[in-house]
């Protein structure tokens, strides 16, 4: 087996193949992963809203050994990834990292957040650094205002920038 610890390096190889096929191929894959992730998130997010999202990423924080801060407010959830283990592993790799590796995260999270009626602002900051800030708003106007502060704003299938 490819150990779960090495999944992101396998993921990286899949991305490199798909990127060569074209943007649509990459997006279709993100949507497939998004559908897979619905098993772990959709009901929780629908049922508990932002609190459910907090619950999910708090579990991920522990299980995926992330250095991240979570802040839950009445109308907003903020996730500040200080050291992303996923990109860190892809960079600590004997195989070449895909240059847009970070894009997959918004690629699968965005469609789920759209589906549950919330508004995602995904700031990757710098694709070479294992850090990012994800903000999820109840209010669309608030999210549009926040987009202007992003250093490297991500889109996803369903939200073209």
């Amino acid at each position, binding site marked *: *087996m*490819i*150990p*779960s*610890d*090495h*999944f*992101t*390096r*396998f*993921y990286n*190889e*899949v991305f490199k*193949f798909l990127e060569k*096929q074209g943007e649509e*191929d990459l997006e*279709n*894959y993100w949507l*497939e*992963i998004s*559908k*897979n992730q619905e*098993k*772990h998130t959709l009901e929780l997010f629908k049922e508990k809203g932002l609190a459910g999202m907090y619950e999910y990423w708090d579990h*991920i924080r*522990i*299980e*995926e*050994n992330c250095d991240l801060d979570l802040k839950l407010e009445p109308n907003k959830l903020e996730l500040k990834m200080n050291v992303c283990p996923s990109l860190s*592993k892809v960079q*600590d*790799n*004997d*195989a*070449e990292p895909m240059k847009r590796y970070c894009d997959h995260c918004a690629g699968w999270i965005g469609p789920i957040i759209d589906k549950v009626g919330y508004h995602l602002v995904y700031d990757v900051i710098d694709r070479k650094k294992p850090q990012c800030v994800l903000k999820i708003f109840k209010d669309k106007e608030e999210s549009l205002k926040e987009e202007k502060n992003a250093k490297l704003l991500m889109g996803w299938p369903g939200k073209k920038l």
Partner: protein
Amino acid sequence: MNNTLSEKTLRYNDKGNVHMDFHGATNTTIEFIIKKYGVNIMNDIFKKVGNNVYADIKKHIQSGNIEMLAKHWKHFFDREGADYSISIEKDEIILTVKRCTAYEHVKKLVGAVSPNFCDQTIKTNEAIAEGTPYEITTEILGEASCKQIIRKRL
């Protein structure tokens, strides 16, 4: 049988918690790639994993040190709580996986595991050994069970 291993460290020596749900994403990926592009493309990707991601293990095997593969197997099967046994000789290592927790976890998540799920093991192993004096064979013994052998090519 000699199951003691040298002190050389693994290239990827993960610690901390284990996120077994990644195996579910691997299963989804295998099904997606095969459906859209065919099994040969999926196998090519595994080949790249074997050759490039595991370049360090390959280098050790190339130089006659197959212990590093045993160390890799032991480390990750222990981390994932699999039931296995391993026999380590100078020129042959036999890993018998009695209960693969990756397979079992995917089965629990999605019900039907891709019939190509174990190709990740078979094809990645083949690529790691490709171009070295050794071969790695993988025999599927049943659901969630296999035997992986590295030995000198005849």
